[in-house]
């Protein structure tokens, strides 16, 4: 079988953001469970954190295709 080692790099770069996104939504669920009325405010913050964390994985994806 053949392939490109850059794709493995993408797999590695997805580990950190995967954990990070999990932590962010865990905190969001905790926050909503403790204080359901804060949902709207927490949702914005959660998606913001999600977007910023996800950017690292997206860098990995873009670079995997740049260096193939």
């Amino acid at each position, binding site marked *: 079988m053949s392939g490109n080692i850059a794709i493995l790099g993408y797999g590695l770069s997805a580990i950190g953001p995967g954990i990070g996104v999990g932590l962010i939504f865990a905190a969001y669920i905790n926050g909503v469970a403790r204080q359901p009325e804060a949902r709207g405010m927490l949702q914005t913050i959660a998606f913001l954190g999600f977007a910023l964390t996800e*950017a690292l994985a997206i860098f990995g994806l873009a670079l995997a295709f740049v260096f193939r």
Partner: protein
Amino acid sequence: MSLGMLAAAGGEEGFTAPNQDIFWQPIFGTSGALAVTRPAVVLVISAVIIALVLNWATKRLTVVPGKRQMGMEATYGLVRNSIARDIIGSHDFLKFVPMLFTMFVLILVNNLFGIVPPFQYPTMSRIAFPLVLALVVYGTYHFLGIKKRGLGGHIGSMVPPGLPGWIKPLVFLLELITYFVTRPVTLALRLFGNMFAGHILLVLFITGGEYMLLHSGSLGLQLFSIPTFAMGIVMTLFELLVEFLQAYIFTLLAALYIAGSLADEH
């Protein structure tokens, strides 16, 4: 493993996994790098559709909204209230609602075209389209910051106040990179990467399933094509979520950057 299996079972040709070349689809004018491509056509069609739908939905506005007005007001309300007003603040958010709403609707419709036949091409999976949108946001927040504080004030306001003196140059350098490089690059790459990866995934599942069903010639792989197609359908639904989420996040971050430039001294 499955790719190796497919290649082994495929005989003379084998299965080729989709790569970035599937996105280059010129329609006419193919000489050289300049061509009218499929995403360009899809973008024009999306602009026409958005204009027609918005005109149709807002033709007869009433105080008690009808069905079509209600749907449009829900979309508009999402951008106006939960993005613009909550983040930019109730004082001067109204000026930016048209821009944010245009971005949201344009990105949303173009993303949805990724899974809606007969278009089935997410425009934003070509880097040029999200790059232009990101540059519009980039220009806007720098222009607003310079207009409010002057050039020196705008650059100076990047450093949060209340830091000890020795750390200021370091933070200033970091913030300079954030404002001028990281923000526009991540804004464009996030949208691009999500659409690109999602589309490649869909193409992989669908063409892989088609290959196993029709060209593999072994019963085991033909049976295995059923879960592959099922996964393709599941990923289509997941794409629907991602497409909406990315339009929302792009608009959210645009509003946040604009709010950062408008904010009073901390």
